[in-house]
């Protein structure tokens, strides 16, 4: 009887949900309805208010006004625990797992079943987890430590964790950002299965293709307001993107044909070890020519960071050779490498690329402060620095209110544009770009991609390292795949399909394609 009643209602419903921080309205009268068994996409640029909305649903923030209804009944969430008790569970983009606990321990964490004297009742928990894992086809190695399992499995742990807490409403925050194409497919299947079991699913994503593949409906929000809720069956990705950013977006990256020139970067037999003396890069050979973008695809943690740090002088090289413009720069200092025409868009912009407590001028001058006209001897020339900063910030469309504001006050997209402005304005003959658009919205991505392509047209060589396969495929002339510290295959962009790249990324061999693997 009760069961029937709930069927008429929505599993979760938001009515005119508003969240204000002082005068700033992060969410403005947002209404969304999600049925059981439905996958509902949530699409919006960075800063559109998705996170604020989800934080209200998971009890972390309290709404300023408006209502949240769960199974037709109004609820007031005062803590994350309240949300859990109501069956709302969130799978976070950045996994919330204890690295040196086992998979099982991580799942139990927080709601441990204890017998007398607080002794953990593992057996019961284990049985429940095994059942869940079977039911949803989520393969887990319960006794492995988190630090030893793949990113894909870590995500499965997060999902089981939520299911273990009996969630019926599941929120996924950008779940595919870190996965290989194969893992993405598996995840999307899991989402469909969960929905068919009657779970209500909210899927936050930038990736229109994925929403298109699984979502029934999608709500688009911009600047804290709902723009529209659309049926996915009859909406094209172009329309979605336009609603998201409020203008037309060009997805086609025009790669004009450029005649490639001389070798700019030549890496031979590079070997790099980390602090624990573990080999992270070995037998690494790669050549990049002028006017060429080489995309290095691979799963996070396969030696990309170490490779880039060793190429840019931030990490010592164990053996091998790095030639840049025919000059041996193996193990040279970062300054010497910069002066030899290398630009570097670092992986972690806030840790390496910028000094957040310093102002825009100081950050723009980070590499050139010690040379004329920005300084003479010991004396800085602030006027020259300010002039240069103004120019490059306007050239690269960095939005700021005041040159003396701290870089930390800029949005993520503008921080990244500042780095790109600084690196590209020096017109480097080799640009090393690591995840240049990570976490940015489609508008900023479009701009940054066009700048990278422009650098290529000007005859510069570009090494693009990205965990986003789509980005690699959009921009690269040639794609190389790195797995466990070495290149396991490379070929012209056109000669590799997405699934082939995916297999290589996962360390599989491509049969019948030996010639591609060893082609140069």
């Amino acid at each position, binding site marked *: 009887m009760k069961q029937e009643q709930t069927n008429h209602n929505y599993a979760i419903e938001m009515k005119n949900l508003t969240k204000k921080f002082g005068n700033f309205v992060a969410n403005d009268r947002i209404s969304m309805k999600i049925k059981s068994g439905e996958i509902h996409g949530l699409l919006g640029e960075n800063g559109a208010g998705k996170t604020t909305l989800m934080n209200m649903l998971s009890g972390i923030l309290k709404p300023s006004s408006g209502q949240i209804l769960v199974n037709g009944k109004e609820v007031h969430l005062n803590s994350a625990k309240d949300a859990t008790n109501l069956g709302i569970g969130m799978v976070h983009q950045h996994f919330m797992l204890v690295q040196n606990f086992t998979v099982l321990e991580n799942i139990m964490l927080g709601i441990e079943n204890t017998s007398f004297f607080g002794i953990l009742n593992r057996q019961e928990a284990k049985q429940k987890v095994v059942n869940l894992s079977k039911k949803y086809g989520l393969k887990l190695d319960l006794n492995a430590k988190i630090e030893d399992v793949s990113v894909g499995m870590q995500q499965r742990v997060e999902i089981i964790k939520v299911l273990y807490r009996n969630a019926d409403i599941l929120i996924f925050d950008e779940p595919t950002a870190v996965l290989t194409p194969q893992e993405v497919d598996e995840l999307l299947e899991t989402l469909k299965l969960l929905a068919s079991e009657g779970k209500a699913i909210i899927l936050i994503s930038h990736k229109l293709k994925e929403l298109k593949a699984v979502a029934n409906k999608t709500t688009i929000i911009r600047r804290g307001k709902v723009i529209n809720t659309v049926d996915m069956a009859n909406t094209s990705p172009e329309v979605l993107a336009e609603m998201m950013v409020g203008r037309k977006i060009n997805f086609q990256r025009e790669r004009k044909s450029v005649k490639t020139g001389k070798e700019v970067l030549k890496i031979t037999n590079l070997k790099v070890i980390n602090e624990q003396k573990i080999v992270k890069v070995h037998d690494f050979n790669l050549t990049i020519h002028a006017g060429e973008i080489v995309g290095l695809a691979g799963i996070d943690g396969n030696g990309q960071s170490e490779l880039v740090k060793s190429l840019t002088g931030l990490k010592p090289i164990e053996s091998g050779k790095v030639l840049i413009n025919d000059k041996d720069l193996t193990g040279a200092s970062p*300054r010497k490498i910069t002066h030899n025409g290398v630009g570097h868009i670092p992986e972690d912009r806030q840790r390496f*690329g*910028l000094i957040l*407590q*310093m102002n825009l001028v100081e950050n723009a001058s980070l590499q050139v402060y010690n040379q004329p006209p920005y300084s003479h001897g010991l*004396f800085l020339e602030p006027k020259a620095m300010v002039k240069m900063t103004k120019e490059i910030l306007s050239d690269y469309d960095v939005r700021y209110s005041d040159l003396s504001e701290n870089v930390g*006050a800029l949005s993520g997209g503008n921080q990244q544009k500042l780095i790109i402005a600084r690196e590209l304005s020096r017109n480097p003959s080799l640009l090393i770009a690591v995840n240049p658009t990570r976490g940015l919205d489609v508008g900023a991505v479009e701009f940054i991609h066009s700048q990278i392509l422009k650098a290529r047209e000007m005859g510069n060589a570009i090494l693009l390292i990205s965990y986003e396969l789509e980005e690699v495929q959009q921009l690269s002339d040639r794609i190389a795949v790195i797995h466990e510290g070495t290149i396991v295959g490379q070929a012209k962009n056109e000669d590799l399909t997405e699934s082939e790249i995916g297999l290589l990324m996962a360390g599989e061999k491509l049969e019948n394609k030996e010639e591609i693997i060893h082609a140069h």
Partner: protein
Amino acid sequence: MRIKKVRLGGISVPLISIFLGLVVGAIIMLLSGFNPLINYLNLFSGALGTPNAIGEVFRSATPLILTALGFSIANSAGFFNVGLSGQALAGWLASVWFALSFPHLPGFILLPGSIIMGALAGAFWSGIAGFLRAYFGTSEVITTIMLNYISLYGTNAIVKGVLTSSDADSTPLVPIQARLRTPFLEKLTGNSTFHWGIVISLFMVFVIWWLMKKTTLGFEIRSVGMNEDAARYAGMSTKKTIISAMLLSGALAGLGGAMEGLGNFQNIFVNTSLPDIGFDGMSVSLLATGNPIGIIFSALLFGILKIGGLNISISSNTPSEIVNIVIASVIFFVGANYIIQYLISKIKTNHNSSKLISNSIKGGHK
């Protein structure tokens, strides 16, 4: 929020800390049966009431300005120089030693020479810690504490064994032309120990301000201190920068020591403990939140509390140590600035529609 560094804008936190420190002192006086109002009146009249007292306040602030600058420059580069006392002592010894060794040199050579020797000795002493930190990653906190003790007992051994002939506890006074105290200043301030060192201190305030804001070295020091990874990425040599900052820090502490050797005491003697100017310099710098101009005022406040504190025990039977409780409380509240800032923002929130919080949220959102 970085814990290692105290970096704040504005002067509200120092002012509130001073006020709260005085309140804590008052509460303790009340609990111990003393009258806080009368004691504070005695304190301030004792520090500012006569030309002599004012002279003493300035004299007491002189080395503190230098050691505080030394602390702040090391802190800007991201480390904690706990060795200011030992470096100051090394500077004190070197300046007196040099002055006593060349008594026939004319003043215009001997005085600057002695001062420079003090700075060099301080720089050498801190340079050891800087070198170990830069090349071996040794924690500068531990090495500077150890170097403090070596400095203390090493100095005492040299005073007894080298600088005095018959195992005496103190050296003769430095030659007249090497002294910073002059009859003119003594007359001006009712025979206080006020000396020309204050000019050197104020000059160094300007130099350090200029160095940090207007030079490539200052830019490097600040970059390394705020984000060592980004500094390395930008091609700065973190080793070179760390050592430069540490050398400068020690040189300033050594200068502070030279002020004691050539100004305040005009000799050196066997110390039973490390000189206060080192640790007080840290406090002065923390209170001033590392700002060179703030350090002048902060050092003067310390001078007032120290000199005025003496008057408390003269005018009543309150022990002058109460002043140390006040100083400690002030520093405690500076250290607890996070709480103070939180309270300030809370008050502001209630008053004007939570502008602060909205900004911080907006910042976090983008």
